[in-house]
């Protein structure tokens, strides 16, 4: 067992290491790229955009015929997203609904990579000489912050566009404390600014970290379940306990997979709904 410990540690570490152009030693280093995250993000983006575009091209000509198959599925999602947006946002911004659709589908596909057996793609990568491969873009901080910061930029952009720069500044400094007395109000301004700034910045951070945390934890459970039979490998099949462990692993992985299917859907949904809410708030006057 003592000899097995480093193997386990190494196995887990391997699943936490990205395929980068060079090792990253500091927290922030903009010369490093996670090839795996970029690759899978773009792949999934192409998958989403391609399949939906395929339906969109067919759908535009089929007003008279009933939709079927994949087209029905896509229309169901689009209609559902549209309903979610209409529930929260009543303005005329034509960006929010497509944005919500993009987020839901892309994040869902990110998360869905978690349900691919944890060792399948990394092991395949090893056969072509890639040392590491992390297949779930939403377990990369860059992946989730890439989404939430884009949403953040849009929030700021529309806040300023709708309310004007002064309106946006006023929103940051004149709430939640306000007074009719000019002097007291002047004293409140810095306090308000600190409170509102924290609230504002907390949005993209919580948006990103919520998704990251859930999916990262889910992936970790899959990795830990894989550890059950790691020590023995195929040799474990020679003993009854080895078979027992393997069946236990299969059962637990299945149960966790089913549960995780719920989690990845909910997380994609939460990300989408919060984005809609934040952008709707950016359009509202206080």
């Amino acid at each position, binding site marked *: 067992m003592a000899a097995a410990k480093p193997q386990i540690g190494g196995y887990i570490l391997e699943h936490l290491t990205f395929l980068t152009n060079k090792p990253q030693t500091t927290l922030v280093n903009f010369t490093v790229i996670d090839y795996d995250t970029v690759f899978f993000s773009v792949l999934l983006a192409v998958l*989403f955009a391609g399949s939906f575009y395929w339906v969109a091209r067919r759908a535009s000509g089929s007003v008279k015929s009933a939709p079927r198959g994949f087209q029905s599925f896509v229309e169901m999602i689009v209609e559902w997203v549209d309903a979610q947006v209409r529930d929260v946002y009543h303005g005329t911004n034509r960006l929010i609904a497509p944005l919500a659709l993009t987020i839901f589908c892309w994040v869902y596909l990110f998360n869905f990579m978690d349900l691919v057996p944890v060792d399948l793609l990394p092991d395949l990568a090893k056969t072509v000489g890639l040392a590491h491969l992390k297949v779930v873009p939403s377990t990369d901080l860059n992946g989730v912050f*890439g989404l939430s910061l884009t949403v953040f930029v849009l929030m700021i952009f529309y806040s300023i566009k709708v309310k004007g720069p002064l309106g946006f500044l006023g929103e940051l400094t004149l709430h939640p404390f306000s007074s009719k007395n000019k002097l007291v109000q002047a004293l409140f301004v810095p306090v308000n600014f600190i409170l509102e700034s924290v609230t504002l910045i907390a949005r993209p951070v919580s948006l990103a970290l919520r998704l990251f945390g859930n999916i990262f934890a889910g992936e970790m459970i899959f990795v830990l379940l894989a550890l059950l039979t790691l020590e023995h490998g195929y040799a474990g099949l020679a003993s009854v306990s080895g078979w027992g462990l393997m069946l236990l692993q299969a059962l637990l992985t299945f149960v966790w997979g089913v549960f995780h299917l719920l989690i990845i859907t909910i997380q994609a949904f939460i990300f989408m709904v919060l984005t809609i809410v934040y952008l709707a708030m950016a359009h509202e006057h206080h």
Partner: protein
Amino acid sequence: MHVNLTLVIQMAVFAVLIWFTMKFVWPMILGPMQERERRIAQGLAAADKGEEELERARASAESILREARERAGVIVDQAQRSATEILDQARSAATHEGQRLVAAAQEQIELDAARAKEQLRQQVGAIAVAAAAKLLDREIDARAHEALLSEFAAQL
């Protein structure tokens, strides 16, 4: 736990993806969906209207039928009435004709009887004259005894 260039790439990819969805996916899926919804709504409205019209047509057809039936009843009544009338007329005409024929026949009979009586009377007169002549063995001057003869004939 690290932040690197991937973040910037991710944001760029995301931005492009949003643009693509907004430009080529969303309107081209939702547009036809709404168009189809509109068509279905129109179709349903047309079906409702058609049903209403059918109901109206059925009602008017029923009223026309009822009217026709009433008119037919009236016509049949009239026909029956006129048939009865014609029958009555024919019957009365036949009765009149019969009576007339009977009357004519009776007249003829009376006439014939009168003529026969007259002949008989004359013959009897002649026979009586002849018989008298035989009895008297001489000719009776018809002219001379005309008054007697006619009185005799009248007594017959």
